[in-house]
């Protein structure tokens, strides 16, 4: 049980707004909407953070899976793939930004989540960033990387 004094109401209020603003356009989260007023209890705070992290993790794993599938397909080139890359990046950037915000808050308030701690979140952020590198690297960049690696 989280002691009430360990939850900063301003932080929680900001986080709730951020979660609602970031995810409501993409994913149905009706249960977050019930917090129309500032969260008043630690249980409410934990609930919102856990919900946010579950949605964030689910979305992050989906993007990572897309990058993995892309690799399995042999990383093809061409205009269609370029469009896919743009769309991937358009999803990745806000997700990374949101993850960084959540991470910053969790690092200062680890008691706010039962679902995921800062260490795992940090690891997933790194993986997500790498998925972006894999998906968005052109064949030239890939070839250059392989040459650089061979020179090490």
């Amino acid at each position, binding site marked *: 049980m989280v002691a009430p004094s360990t939850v900063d109401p301003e932080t929680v209020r900001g986080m709730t707004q951020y979660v609602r603003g970031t995810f409501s356009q993409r994913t149905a989260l009706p249960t977050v909407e019930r917090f129309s007023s500032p969260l008043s209890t630690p249980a409410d705070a934990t609930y919102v953070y856990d919900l946010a992290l579950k949605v964030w993790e689910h979305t992050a794993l989906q993007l990572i899976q897309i990058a*993995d599938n892309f*690799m399995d397909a042999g*990383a093809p080139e061409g205009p269609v793939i370029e469009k896919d890359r743009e769309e991937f990046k358009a999803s990745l950037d806000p997700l990374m930004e949101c993850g960084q915000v959540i991470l910053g808050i969790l690092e200062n308030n680890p008691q706010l989540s039962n679902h995921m701690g800062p*260490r795992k979140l940090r*690891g997933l952020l790194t993986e997500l960033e790498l998925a972006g590198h*894999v998906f968005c*690297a052109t064949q030239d*960049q890939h070839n250059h990387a*392989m040459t650089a690696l061979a020179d090490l």
Partner: protein
Amino acid sequence: MRDELLDPLMVALHLFREARAKGEPDYGDLLEAYEQLLLKTFHEVAEPKGLTLPNFRFLINQAYRERRPQLLKQFKNR
């Protein structure tokens, strides 16, 4: 980079990624093991040559992109 340095990194990265994709609960531990190996290799091999850690990660990830089909076959029946 020599195979004896690159191969363990590829395997560690692959095992972690597969565990994560399957939703296995220990994927966080495998990620940590991979990160430790990555950092050790970075300090030994890449940092002395002036590479940054993000650049090194990128190189390793691109190597994984190339080797993934082979690793999938290698670990298919495990």
